[in-house]
Structures are given as structure tokens and as C-alpha cells.
């Protein structure tokens, strides 16, 4: 009998465990009628900064100010400097049910998070809530109304037809130009530069003396054009050319003739040392500031590092070369219809068993959209606030107007970078978000990096090479697997496979047999008594 009980226990345990796997997960969040201010809530906030102390201080001040307004909420911040690390840690913590409450994120990442059920809180109902939604009557701070959040940026937070995030900051990429060198080469800088012009000037800058010194800068090093994020480079070039990248349903379209042309163009310009990348050579800003680069494409959120009088510098002062810096939009194929990427952190909220805790998280997340936080954070770099309320505030307008009045807070390159985005919000775009879009983005950059590396390694880059490269990244990033486009809760998984049905049948039969056996034993005992 003891053996039988042991068997039953093991079987029960196995059933319990297997029952948990793939279970329904947490209940969907329902907005409480009122926020309970009598109870203490401790929430965690995973934040990302650009290794910038001022940004850290702004987060800390925002938390202090928020806690004064809501003394029953304590916010514990964990700082990251890398989106990839946040993504990986969130994935790990989803499985242990220890996600943060509020998290800086990218919509691409959310698409993966929501493959679990009720993991991330959909925000549409919260947006519209009369008391606690945008501009809600019960809020203890002056947050933006819904129509004051820049619609384009808010739309970027839609995943599977629902808002799963709010925008926090926005940036784009900018072309930082050593104007002194361009003019020395006999060129004038137009308002919008084409890819052809960039590469033409870059080629001109590769001229060397007999002893190997570059004529333009008198140094042994010159990388005329360096691109920081080659995934963005590929994505933007394809968009500008009207070529395929992906579809919202997860269809991958990147393996096309335009991509091949782009890779050949990369190969041609690496071959002549006119072009390099961050991953191959180092931070564009370091070469730029040392007079070893004419064109550097980097985020507007990196503007404080660009230019010979930049407030942040990663190279010794003795290596900095004085020159004049100009800021332009990234190179274009069609200057009449410029297109550039929209990027920057968003904020999502993770679901918890206690709906009051989730509401506390939402109150804090929304607080990060108040004017004071928005303008302060945006001014640390070439970001822009995500609300028209903050963009149009007197404080922010005054900040923009003071461009160039000092080399720190009002550093002219930083404010020029912000203005670039402010004036081009309608020319920005984002790529479709689906479970797997992060991998596709990685693959886009990987193809440029691999091509550039192969040329530097004196390997042949031809049609056969590119076809093989397509195969390689397809396998590496599993792009041949049709992506999920939304949450599991919305999917019709269809009928159970025959093997699963058979297994369930065996389990049911086993239970019947066990119960019959137990029943028979009981009857036997009774008969004996």
C-alpha cells in the first residue's frame, strides 16, 4: 500500500508540474476603483542611462519628488546602461515571476515579453481612466493629456493593436560633420547630403602621401566615414529606397536586391578605407574629435560627445584637433522625401497579482512624462521630450534659444541635434514590431559588419558571398521561423496534435486504473472486517 501511495504522490506531483507549464499565467489587470493610499507599495524601476551621471541624478530626483506626492509608494531603481542587458534580465525574471514593476524598454522587446500571458499590462484602459489616466482628475501632478503625448511617438508603443508602453524620450540619428575638413577638400555642405556625396567626399579624404600620411589631416589614421549602428544604417537605407525589410505579420523581406546593392556599396567603400563601423574600429566620436574622421553617424542622444569642444570626451586632450562641427540629418537617397529612424526609450509596466501595485506603477510611469522630468532629461543629450506640453513649455523653448551660449548645458551641437528631430518628427519611422523583430534588426546590422570585416580580411565579396551571407544570418537569427505577432492569449492554437491526445488518453486511463485499484482494495478491506 505504501508503494501505491508513493506512486500516487509522484503522479500527482507530475500532473501538478505539467499543469503549471503553459498555464494561463496571471489574471489580466483590472483597474481598481480607487488607489489605496493607506497601504505601502514598493515598486522596482529598471532604468537605462547613457552612462551619464546627470541622467542618473534626474531619475533620482524624479523618484524623490514622486515619493513626496505619494508617500505610500517607494520606488527602488536599478540602473542599466545597455538595452540588451535589460531585455535579457527581463526574460530571465519572467520565468521566475520577478519582473520589475516599471521598465525602460523598446517595443521590439515587448513583442517578446507578451508571448507570455498577462505579463505586460496593456495600457489603453489606463490611458482613458478618468481618475488615473492621462490628465486624470485624481493625479497629484500635472501630467500631459493624451493628445499632448506626440501621437507618432505614442503610436510607436502599439504592439498587437494595443498600447503596451508609453514613450519616454525620443532621438534619431544625426550626421556629425567636420566642416573644416569638408571645405578643405573643396566641398560645400548642402542642407541635405546624399549617400553619393558622402562617399565621394570620403573617397577624396583617403589620399595619402608617399610615406603613408593622409594629406587631409597629416596623420597616419583617417577613417573618413564611420557609422555607429549598422542595423539602423541598413534599415534606413532600405526604407529610403522603398525596399522591403519586414511586414507587421512577421514576414521577413530583407533578403532582396536592394540589400545586395547596399552590401556591395559597403564593400567598395571599406576596400578603399573610406568607410568603417563602430564595431570594427571604435566610437565614431573618438575618431571625429581626433581629426581622424569627417562624417560620423551616431544617435542625437550622443551629441554631447561630438565635436572638438564637446563637453564629454573619451580621448586625451592632447589628441583633440580643433575644427568646426555641423549637424545634418543622415544621408538620403531622395532629399525631397527624407526619412530617418525614430528611436529612444519607452516605458512598460509589468503585471502583478495586486492590482493596486500595478496602479502604483502606472502612477509613477506617468509621472515621468511631467514637464519637469521630460525637459530635464531631454536636455542631458540630443533627446527631445515626448509631449507637446513639455516641448512648448517656456523652460524648454528658452533652453533651445540659448544654443551655443555655453559649452555644457547649451552646447550648440547637442541643441542642433535636438532641433534636427524636432523639425523632422513627421519624417521619422519605426519598423514593424513582432516577436523576432529584435533578431531581424540584429541580422540587418550583422550583414554590414560581416561584409566590412570580410573586405578587411582580403576576402572576396561577390554575389555568391552575399547569397551565403543571407543564408548565414537566416540560420543565426532563425529568420526562417515565422514570427509570432502577438500574445499567446490571442492566438487560436488549433486542435491538439494526435500525440498529445494519445498522451492525455493514457493519463486518464492511468487515473481510472488507479481509482479502480484503490476502490477494489477498500472493498476487500471492508469485506475482511
Amino acid at each position, binding site marked *: 500500500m505504501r508503494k501505491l501511495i508513493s506512486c500516487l504522490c509522484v503522479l500527482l506531483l507530475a500532473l501538478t508540474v505539467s499543469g503549471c507549464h503553459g498555464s494561463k499565467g496571471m489574471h489580466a489587470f483590472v483597474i481598481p476603483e480607487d488607489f489605496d493610499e493607506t497601504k505601502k507599495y514598493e515598486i522596482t524601476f529598471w532604468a537605462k542611462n547613457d552612462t551619464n551621471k546627470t541622467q542618473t541624478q534626474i531619475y533620482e530626483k524624479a523618484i524623490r519628488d514622486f515619493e513626496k506626492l505619494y508617500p505610500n509608494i517607494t520606488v527602488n531603481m536599478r*540602473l542599466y546602461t545597455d538595452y540588451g542587458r535589460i531585455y535579457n534580465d527581463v526574460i530571465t525574471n519572467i520565468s521566475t515571476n520577478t519582473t520589475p514593476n516599471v521598465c525602460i524598454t523598446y517595443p521590439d522587446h515587448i513583442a517578446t515579453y507578451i508571448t507570455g500571458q498577462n505579463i505586460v499590462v496593456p495600457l489603453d484602459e489606463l490611458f482613458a481612466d478618468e481618475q488615473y489616466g492621462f490628465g486624470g482628475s485624481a493625479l497629484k501632478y500635472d501630467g500631459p493629456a493624451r493628445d499632448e503625448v506626440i501621437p507618432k511617438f505614442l503610436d510607436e508603443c502599439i504592439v498587437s493593436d494595443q498600447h503596451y508602453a508609453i514613450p519616454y524620450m525620443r532621438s534619431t540619428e544625426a550626421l556629425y560633420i567636420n566642416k573644416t575638413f569638408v571645405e578643405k577638400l573643396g566641398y560645400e555642405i548642402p542642407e541635405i547630403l546624399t549617400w553619393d556625396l558622402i562617399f565621394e567626399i570620403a573617397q577624396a579624404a583617403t589620399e595619402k602621401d608617399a610615406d603613408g600620411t593622409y594629406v587631409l589631416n597629416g596623420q597616419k589614421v583617417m577613417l573618413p566615414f564611420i557609422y555607429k549602428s549598422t542595423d539602423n544604417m541598413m534599415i534606413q537605407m532600405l526604407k529610403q529606397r522603398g525596399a522591403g525589410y519586414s511586414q507587421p505579420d512577421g514576414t521577413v523581406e530583407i533578403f532582396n536586391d536592394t540589400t545586395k546593392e547596399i552590401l556591395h556599396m559597403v564593400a567598395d567603400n571599406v576596400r578603399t578605407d573610406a568607410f568603417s563601423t563602430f564595431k570594427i*574600429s*571604435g566610437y565614431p566620436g573618438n575618431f571625429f574629435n581626433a581629426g581622424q574622421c569627417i562624417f560620423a553617424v551616431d544617435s542625437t542622444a550622443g551629441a554631447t560627445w561630438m565635436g572638438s569642444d564637446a563637453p564629454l570626451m573619451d*580621448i586625451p586632450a592632447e589628441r583633440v584637433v580643433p575644427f568646426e562641427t555641423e549637424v545634418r540629418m543622415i544621408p538620403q537617397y531622395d532629399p525631397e522625401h527624407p526619412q530617418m529612424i525614430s528611436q529612444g526609450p519607452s516605458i512598460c509596466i509589468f503585471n502583478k497579482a495586486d492590482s493596486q501595485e500595478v496602479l502604483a506603477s502606472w502612477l509613477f510611469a506617468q509621472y515621468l512624462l511631467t514637464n519637469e522630468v521630460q525637459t530635464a532629461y531631454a536636455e542631458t543629450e540630443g533627446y527631445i521630450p515626448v509631449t507637446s506640453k513639455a516641448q512648448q513649455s517656456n523652460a524648454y523653448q528658452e533652453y533651445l534659444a540659448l544654443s551655443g551660449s555655453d559649452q555644457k548645458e547649451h552646447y550648440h551641437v547637442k541643441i542642433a541635434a535636438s532641433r534636427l528631430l524636432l523639425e523632422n518628427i513627421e519624417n521619422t519611422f519605426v519598423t514593424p514590431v513582432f516577436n523576432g523583430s529584435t533578431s531581424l534588426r540584429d541580422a540587418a546590422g550583422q550583414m554590414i559588419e560581416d561584409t566590412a*570585416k570580410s573586405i*578587411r*580580411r582580403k576576402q572576396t565579396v561577390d554575389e555568391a558571398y552575399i547569397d551565403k551571407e543571407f543564408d548565414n544570418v537566416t540560420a543565426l537569427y532563425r529568420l526562417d521561423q515565422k514570427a509570432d505577432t502577438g500574445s499567446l492569449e490571442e492566438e487560436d492554437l488549433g486542435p491538439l496534435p494526435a500525440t498529445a491526445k494519445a498522451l492525455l488518453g493514457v493519463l486518464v486511463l492511468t487515473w481510472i486504473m488507479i481509482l479502480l485499484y484503490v476502490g477494489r482494495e477498500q472493498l476487500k478491506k471492508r469485506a475482511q472486517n
Partner: protein
Amino acid sequence: MKKLGNVLMASLLLLTVGCSKGSGKEAGKADTEKGEGVMTYAEYAAAETGSEVTIETYIQGSQSWWEGAARFYTQDAEGGYFIYGMPCTEEEYKKLTPGTKIKVHGYKAVWSGEVEIDEGAEWEILDGNYIAEPIDVTSLLGTDGLIDKQNMKVSFKGLTVEAANDAGDAFLYNWDGSGSEGDDLYFNVSKDGQVYSFTVESYLTGKDTDVYKAVKELKVGDKIDVEGFLYWYEGPQPHVTAVSASK
């Protein structure tokens, strides 16, 4: 009897493994002879950026495993080699402990001044074991000669801890103090009136290591000796592995 047989077999196996590990090699010394097609350090140093290189070297330290690869600080009898993003499974990574001899085939690269073997290198474990003694490069601080010791295990003696910021802190989380516990530590030291920046690289020596804790205890004015790997980022950036009071 069966049990006895098993024990005997296991003992025999252990003995066999033990013998193969020590086969004709003197433990604790780096081989000076290289295998066929393997470069000497001088040949490696002279090789062009982007060219194919093959080396035999000994692991001295590693940064944490991350997404199917890790970065290794390695050294042979002549010089140091940094191997960036060497592909390995987590199981393989656990076997690549300090002292392990490896043969690496890859491409030479330079990233922000750091000479390294680029990501994706092929490797195999060889028979041999060597832990390098740090070489004292104190006299080379601030000179052009320091770069010749790049990536080697080095030591600096008699340094004075200087303030890392205007507030007088002895160390910072991240280069500008923007980080928190667990992030890289940055601290300044001086020697003969010149100030140098040293780093505790958190992926090499994280917050639970002795060196991480020791650096957090530093006070401005402390006299210290330092050991570490001579990493390079736009100039020397030693990745510190040990700190002690100056002798």
C-alpha cells in the same frame, strides 16, 4: 566483487587522465616552442590588422560568458593576447580556466587601440598549463614603452590614490559616477606627479570579488600596489585584479 571491479576501473581511469595531463611537460612554465604554423608573439605583433593569425597561449583571466562567447586575457612566455568574443558554450567556458593552454586561429583586429583577436575565433585546448607572474611596469607608466606590454599581466608599485571627482571620492561607479553597485569601478592613482585612471572591469571581477570590495574601501591618499591586465582603450586602461597596501 562487481563493486570492487568498478572501483578498480575508476582508479585506473583517474590514473590515465592524470598521466596524460602531465605528459612530458613541466607544469607552471609556458612552452617556448610553438607548434607548426603557429606564430611567435613577435610575428603576431607585426601582423597587419585584419590578417589571419594563429597563436598558442595560456588563459590568465576571462570576462563573464555572454550569449555564446566570452572575452579572454591570455599570455604566453613572450606577450599578451586579448581574445574578443571567442565562441564557446557555457560548459566549454567552465573548462577554460586560468592556466589552460589553447590554440587560437582568427583575425587580428584593433578596437580603440586595443589589439585583439576578433570575435568568432576557432580554438582548441592543448596540453599544458601556465599562470603568468605579473611583470612590474611601474617605471613604464606614462611612457611610450608601456604599449609593448599590452594585454599582459602586470603590476604597479607604490601608487597613491587620488580623488576621482571634485567631491573627493576615491572611486566612481562607471567613469562619471553614473552607475551603481555591480557596475565597473573607476579610480585614479598617481605616480611621480602624473595621474592615471584604473578600472575594475565588472565582467572580469564582479561585485563579490575581493578586488571589487578592496577598491570600494580605498581612501584618497592610500599607498597601494596594483595587479591587473594591461587593457587598452584610447590609451592604457589597466583592468585591475588585485589591490594591496604598498609594501
